[in-house]
């Protein structure tokens, strides 16, 4: 078995991992190693062939492959070592990883710091317990996207999309552009799950959006034949007599993403039940010393630009830690999401320096007042569940924070 030491080992070569690795290297850590389980770097972005990436970070409108190519080039220009098709099997609380690939076999790697950047996975049909049969033709949106944009196969020609998350909306358009009939997008909530700009995918192609509906039965023995959908009541429960059956041969699920924290659990990293990701402090360090985290493994982001920024932050801080320049913060103030605020990241701040908190709301609201602690009020004209809400804790606001160790971040519903 190969045994070796590295300064920083980054688990995952997607948008977060690449940003973290390049930032770590640029901040003076020579030995940075990226472990990626796919055969290419870039994570999900190479299959996101639509535009809309980089508007914040580069002030340009790029496709997914264009956006990520810039970081991949940087990784190679900086001479950062990457091991592809490499699966990390184990991670300990002492920053030791066990990984395997075809050329090196089994490896035991000791790092000064670890950066978790494993991203997220899609919720499957099973997790939703949609009743009915179990035929071929039920896929998640991301799998369908990969099949279409990387593998070159269209998984069906009459498609119904369940869930109006961004990937679902984008895939509605992709199917339509490939000549498939898209019968509709079904969303259980009364409002769309994706960003406003992605709703245009539906209007451009005349694809119906069924808000306040849920799938109540999947039909078909060998291949999907139809799906019954039903209007739902205020509690999200299907209403009797409000069903309709839509013929289709394919069901695409875009019903949510789950941060992939199996390795974090192995290392004993404390997880936030609401985000599904590690609890992090403002340095993006987890509850386990020297293990940092960034991107969708921490919480599911709306824009890759934010993922990149978070990755860079974690890379810089991990690099400082390896050099002994990042002492643990003196004060640890826990932030607690309340009311219409579903979660807030980071969950722990020092209160010593200005920063931006990111949060998600449970329901849309206009003229929202977000209260941080007793005294700080941040106003937002509009907040939506699909978009991350940024809460700037400026130096002036921090003075109002108070002395408590546990502070609420809340919004009245």
């Amino acid at each position, binding site marked *: *078995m190969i045994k070796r030491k590295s300064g920083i080992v980054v688990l995952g070569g997607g948008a977060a991992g690449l940003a973290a690795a390049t930032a770590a290297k640029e901040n003076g850590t020579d030995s940075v190693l990226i472990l990626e389980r796919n055969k290419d770097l870039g994570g999900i972005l190479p299959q996101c062939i639509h535009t809309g990436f980089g508007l914040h970070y580069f002030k340009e409108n790029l496709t997914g492959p264009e956006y990520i190519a810039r970081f991949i080039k940087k990784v190679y220009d900086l001479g950062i070592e990457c091991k592809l*098709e490499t699966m990390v*099997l184990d991670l300990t609380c002492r920053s030791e990883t066990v990984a*395997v*690939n075809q050329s090196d076999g089994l490896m035991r790697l000791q790092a000064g710091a670890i950066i978790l950047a494993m991203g997220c996975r899609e919720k*499957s049909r099973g997790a939703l317990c949609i009743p009915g049969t179990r035929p071929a033709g039920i*896929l998640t949106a991301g799998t369908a996207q*990969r099949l279409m944009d990387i593998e070159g196969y269209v998984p069906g020609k009459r498609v119904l999309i369940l869930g109006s998350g961004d990937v679902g909306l984008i895939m509605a358009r992709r199917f339509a552009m490939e*000549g498939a009939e898209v019968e509709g997008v079904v969303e259980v909530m009364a409002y769309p799950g994706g960003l406003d700009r992605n709703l245009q995918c539906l209007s451009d192609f005349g694809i119906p959006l069924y808000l306040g509906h849920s799938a109540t*039965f999947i039909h078909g023995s060998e291949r999907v034949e139809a799906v019954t959908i039903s209007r739902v009541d205020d509690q999200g429960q299907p209403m009797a007599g409000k069903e309709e059956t839509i013929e289709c041969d394919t069901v695409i699920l875009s019903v949510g993403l789950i941060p992939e924290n199996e390795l974090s659990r192995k290392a004993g990293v404390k997880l936030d039940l609401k985000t599904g990701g590690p609890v992090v402090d403002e340095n993006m360090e987890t509850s386990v010393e020297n293990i940092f985290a960034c991107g969708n493994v921490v919480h599911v982001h709306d824009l890759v630009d934010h993922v990149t920024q978070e990755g860079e932050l974690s890379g810089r801080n991990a690099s400082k830690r390896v050099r002994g320049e990042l002492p643990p913060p003196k004060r640890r103030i826990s932030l607690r999401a309340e009311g219409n605020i579903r979660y807030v990241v980071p969950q722990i701040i020092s209160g010593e320096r200005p920063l931006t908190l990111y949060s998600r709301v449970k329901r849309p609201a206009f003229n929202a007042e977000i209260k941080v602690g007793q005294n700080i009020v941040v106003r937002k004209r509009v907040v939506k569940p699909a978009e991350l809400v940024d809460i700037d804790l400026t130096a002036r606001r921090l003075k109002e924070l108070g002395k408590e160790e546990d502070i609420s971040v809340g919004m009245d519903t």
Partner: protein
Amino acid sequence: METSVLIIGGGITGTAIARELSKYDVKVVLIEKEADVAFGGPTKANTAILHAGYDDKPGTLAAELCPRGNSLWSKLASNLSVPFKRIGSLVAALEDEEVPVLKELIERGRRNGVQGLRIVKGEELFEMEPNLNKQAVAGLYAPTAGVLSPYEAAIALSENAKQNGVSILLETRATGVILEDGEAKAVQTNNGTIYAQNIVNAAGLFADEVSFMAGISKFRIIPRKGEYVIYDKDLSGIVNHVLFPVPTLVSKGITVTPTVDGNVIAGPNAHDMEDKNDLTTTSDGLEEVLNGAYRLISVLESRRDAIITGFAGLRPQPTTEDFIIKPYREPRGFINVAGIKSPGLTSAPAIAEMVVDILKREGLALREKDDFDPFRKPIFHPMRDFHLIKMGELTSQDPRYGHIVCRCEYVTEAEIVDALRRGATTLDGVKYRTRAGMGRCQGGFCTPHVVRIISRELGVPIEEVTKNGGESRILPHPAKQLLLGGRKE
């Protein structure tokens, strides 16, 4: 085609009979209507447990065969390298009124010859099952109960049978039985007529229809549906035994059980259906199963997020209420092995012995082979027990062991290739042999990769790769084909 014994049905019963017969110098053919063994209804979807044998009414065939089968599985599972854990079962009485039922079950168990049954209470009970409903007053502990995977067992039995000379014909459906002079002579199939001196009907849900073809219509098989949910391996340890409620008249109740692979399974409910192909799950059924599970392990109520999938299975419930295993005077040469409901998986090895005895008595000359090989090599799965050293060694011999295709279950390319060499032809065939796609993402990541490997290894176009045979194609259209071919057919 001609054979001495023709077995109809490649479920756990048919494959167990085939493997038992493969010990003897006799020509055996097994036909299965689906694209793979264990693809039918009951074998691929049941609770996957070995019953101790205290449930069945003394004097019934099930009561006789279950404890015998239970003890046979120890050696059989080990010879066939089928994962198997004798974790024991507990029937939990949740109120004082239920305690007499436990005593009744002990008495039944005693009469059925089940060893080691005893009542556990208080501290001991909750030490065994710390998450058990706090209202539980007593439990019936059966140390001989266990868990094993029924489809892996059937696949292993069929592989070992094949290794010892049995022919297995897939996608071959019995369509008629040729009767002549009071004797069953042959079975007609979609792939031609197979002449056989002895026909063994192990057709599961359809055993009544095959029996009817042979002129025997004394029973019917009612498909009794049971729905299940599977929880993530994260919940492993939440339950330690096969945990039952006190049984009702129709079923042993909704259980919560660790699976042999470390997941938790809850189910089944029990509803008699009309349609033998109705494997649909329902929202009412799901609620019923979950409520049953919460009654035993209430902490599950807060872990609905940990459900990774749900499914339904059909038990072949005979109108006679007991296993039907017998030859007939008319027609001769026809043996029914029908109505193999629960505890069919447990009983299978004992049923197989019984069928061999019947065949002997019916005059079939069975001489033991000198070269019978009882061992089947498993598909080696280095990560099943997190065997890192082995994984390292294997990867240096075959780099494909270093390529993990299914990320949730850590299944390597080498295992998938091995499964295909052994006869898997479909995505589900690979899944049942390797667990690729059975994890928490339910095939989201690995499906495209597995489809490619199937296509490459078997030399079939990607468009033709199916989930489980028939029209269940996964990637029917190469990109741009729909655009070139117009929008709709």
